């Protein structure tokens, strides 16, 4: 079942007098509970595409339908609401709130975005901490955690409000190779447990091989999806 459909997607930036077409007519579909990678070299349009899928940016033309909602028509507040309810984000630089502990960072969307009651919040955050293997680090602040631990917290934060789609822009770029694999495998494991669709971007060939569906971007064009024959659920 498709979770996301993009049709005729283009994105043009104006840089001074010059117009740069970052995305040139992309059409693709992403199924529910899939593990998808957008791959390509730097500047190929991966981040632009993820930003548009995540309602952070509007396309110049074309439509994106996520969970039967045309997100290109949403205004700023509606887009924020839609993201809060349906989309989780994992960033390359982790982007945890430095004054909050690991527990509080995971809890943050449930307070600031969804306003869950305290008891339900506690249960959910504890469950997520356990799921990402961070229950012993719950009281540590980001500056007391390693890069891999921070990204685990970020994954838990992306999933805590039961997001249907998690977008991860270069989630392993700031991690060493082993840690990067562990994070990708954690994301896969979470996908298996929760049925959440994971879409990530990478230019690391070894990491991209972990994806079940891969879209390659070349000069702003999205090439047809390549499907991995054997899923490697580690």
């Amino acid at each position, binding site marked *: 079942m498709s979770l996301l459909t993009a049709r005729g997607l283009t994105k043009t930036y104006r840089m001074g007098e010059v117009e740069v077409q970052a995305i040139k007519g992309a059409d693709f579909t992403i199924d529910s509970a899939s593990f998808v990678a957008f791959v390509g070299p730097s500047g190929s349009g991966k981040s632009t595409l993820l930003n548009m899928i995540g309602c952070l940016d509007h396309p110049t033309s074309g439509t994106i339908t996520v969970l039967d909602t045309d997100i290109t028509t949403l205004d700023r507040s509606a887009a924020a609401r839609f993201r809060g309810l349906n989309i989780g984000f994992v960033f390359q630089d982790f982007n945890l*709130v430095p004054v909050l502990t690991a527990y509080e960072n995971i809890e943050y969307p449930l*307070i*600031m975005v969804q306003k869950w009651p305290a008891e339900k919040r506690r249960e959910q955050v504890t469950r997520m901490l356990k799921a990402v293997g961070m229950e012993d680090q719950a009281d540590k602040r980001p500056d007391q955690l390693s890069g891999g631990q921070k990204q685990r917290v970020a994954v838990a934060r992306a999933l805590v409000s039961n997001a249907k789609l998690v977008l991860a822009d270069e989630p392993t770029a700031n991690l060493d190779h082993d840690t990067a694999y562990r994070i990708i495998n954690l994301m896969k494991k979470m996908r298996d447990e929760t049925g959440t669709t994971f879409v990530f971007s990478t230019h690391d060939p070894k990491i991209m091989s972990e994806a079940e569906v891969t879209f390659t971007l070349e000069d702003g064009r999205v090439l047809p999806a390549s499907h991995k024959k054997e899923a490697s659920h580690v």
Partner: protein
Amino acid sequence: MFDIFKIAVRNLSRYRRRTILTFILIVIGMVAVLLFMSVTGSFKSMMVGQITDSVLGHLEVHRKGYVASIDNLPLNLNLKPQAMTKVESALHQIAAVQTWSPRVKFGGMYSNFVETTAIRINGVDPEREAATVPLLPSRISEGRKDGALVAKGEILIPALLARGMKSKVGDTVVLVATNRDGSVNGKTFVVRGVIESISGPGGRDGYIHIDDAREMLRMKEAEVSEIAIRLKDPAQLDRTEARLKQALEGEANNDGKPKQEGTPNKDGKPMLEVHTWADLSPFANLARMIDLMTVFIKVVLVSIVLVSVMNVMVMAVYERIREIGTIAAIGTPPGRILSLFLSEGLLLGLIGTAIGTLVSLAIIFALNIWKVHFAFGQQQDLVLAPQIGAVQVLTIALMVVGVAVIASLQPAWKASRLDPINALRHV
């Protein structure tokens, strides 16, 4: 909301030094304003108390034109017994009036048989005068303070005159005065006491019995120069003044013009004037100046809070742009981002105000324990007893908190309107 405050507290503690500096600025501002208000307020109320309770009373009634030429103490502008009766009848009707005292005022010459000098005299009914200006007996620095304020044949002389003329209690002196018809009359008196001078009109007058004054001035009927009135509650001053003016207006003026104060004479013009102590004392101008200075000090406080809180909040937004981008990206509505930053400004104001209030109250308490003495004009050894009311503290506190929130509005608004993509790219 509690969770937002919790996060706001954490954010404030993130930049500890900057936050503490802002608190210090707010505290200094609060302390400056509250101390200034309490000290000047107590000085004002003490001086007003001195003026109303030992010289002027709260209100005075004169014949029309008397106050305009009060420096000459004109005898031809005294109130006749009929007017006095009318005023007394009006005063009886007003519940706010506690008591009143008729006075005969005149200028004369004071002689100790060696030297002669000018003196201004109040002829008073001792009991009524003591009831109307109850602090008057406490100004007697030498001589008897018990019994009647002044008996017939006795005089209370001002301290400056006593020193200049080397007069002592028990000395026999002569007062000479010219009456309304121009004849000069004299009478001997015994100095009963020396009275300390205070600033303002009547503060350096001598006192004799009202019957002696009338006898000296050869008055055929019981004339009165002025009637000093004491109120039960000084806060009722304006209302009572208005009521008294209304009561003394008498019937409508003949010319049909709007009613004026005072009983109309046969031409329809008012004959009586009602004045508050503030109309008669130059200290009222000083009091108004103090009020104006208080306004300026409040403006300075508002500026301090506005600039310091705005500075902190602008810096906070600037330094946390990526963080704002992150929380916006994960779906935090703009309104919640706005309230997060407003909460930080609110907390800066609230905590600064709380500390400032506590420090101010502690200093005011200390000033009341270690009494501060000062002199004002002729008055020596006045004790400063600064006090501040809950309403004043609450007003200043609300003002500071309100300004802190207003100062946070622009940075908070900017934070809430940041584009998540640009914010996330910010280095």
